[in-house]
């Protein structure tokens, strides 16, 4: 049994790494994946989203979404290119609680979409 513990720990570490690598995207239902941002292209939504981001997200993800020691950057290719607005909305709504990302369902839906508008504008 004792010999299995390192293997078990290795398995857990690989599992955790998988989740941090964006494996959450595989769990997004198709209808959520395809959702479009109702604020798409609105500059005021980007500004409002940045305010919400600074208030609720910046402490963990950095003021410019550059990430911190323990939390990922949101300027990554995964967030900017691979994830659709619908994917990000699903993540904000449900969180990734086992990995430390809380659910932000407490914020009204329009504010979640405004944050997504801001996040998607960062690379531009």
């Amino acid at each position, binding site marked *: 049994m004792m010999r299995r513990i390192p293997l078990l720990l290795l398995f857990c570490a690989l599992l955790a790494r998988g989740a941090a690598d964006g494996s959450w995207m595989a769990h997004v239902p198709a209808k959520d994946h395809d959702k479009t941002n109702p604020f798409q292209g609105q500059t005021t939504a980007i500004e409002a989203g940045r305010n919400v981001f600074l208030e*609720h997200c910046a402490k963990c993800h950095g003021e410019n979404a550059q990430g911190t020691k323990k939390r990922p950057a949101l300027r990554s290719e995964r967030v900017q290119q691979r994830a659709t607005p619908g994917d990000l909305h699903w993540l904000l709504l449900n969180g990734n609680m086992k990995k430390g990302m809380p659910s932000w369902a407490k914020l009204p839906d329009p504010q979640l979409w405004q944050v997504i508008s801001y996040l998607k504008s960062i690379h531009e």
Partner: protein
Amino acid sequence: MKPIALLVAVFSLTPLLAAQERPYFVTYSHEMEEPGNLELEMFNAAGRPPGGNLFFGSNIEFEYGVTAWWTSEFYLDGQSTLNDSTIFTGFRWENRVRPLMREHWINPVLYAEFEDTSADKALREVVGHDGVPDFSDRNAVARRDKEREMELKLILGSNYRGWNISENIIAEKNLSNDPWEFGYAWAVSRPLRLAASAHKCTFCAERFQAGLEMYGGLGDRHSFGLNQTSHYVGPSINWTAPNGTTLSFSPQFGLNDYSIPHLYRFGVSYEIEQFLSYFHRGGDR
């Protein structure tokens, strides 16, 4: 004077903070504290029971997000009664765990609390046959009745189109030979505006939340029901300042003769994000 100076220092040094509190005083929503955040809260209740003295019950709370699905909270309770005395009434320790890792139509949270109080008048919940007679004794008499209790709650919460709907089912057991006591609480609330403003603002509508809260006792294992139980209902509102301080207020009304006719509740809370990072050398501040 030192504690006040410490509080002022914490309030002034802490940078931009997050808080999106529901304007509830008794009801818990399914929303947990963000992991690593520490919320300092003070909730107060003032009222006058018929034939009794004006009282002011108070909690100071320290709420910490242990993980995204586990929140732990420690309370210190006290009360002051006009023409009587001001006393420390005890402490509570609660834990809330969210068993489902995703958001659903109805989201359950399991709650367990241990409390060691006496002569408590903060009214953080109403169970069993709690009512006016509990507020009539003088503090010296009331504090002889030690309440070492375990409290369990099933918290159910839903968010729909900006509305939050929360229901709590409460079961409380005095660790002596008293029977299980039951109670309930429910509340609804909504921000006055759902979308955020493009400009930074202090008093814009999205910083206010308004709602309605109702709670009461349901008797105990031997006498379950509404007989000799107290019930309260009232509107509530809160406002969150840009620095994360939330002020809440609710006038509440007793619904029968067994209830205190009027309660005035007010609270202030302040959230420190990633609390432990302030103690890490070179931590992410």
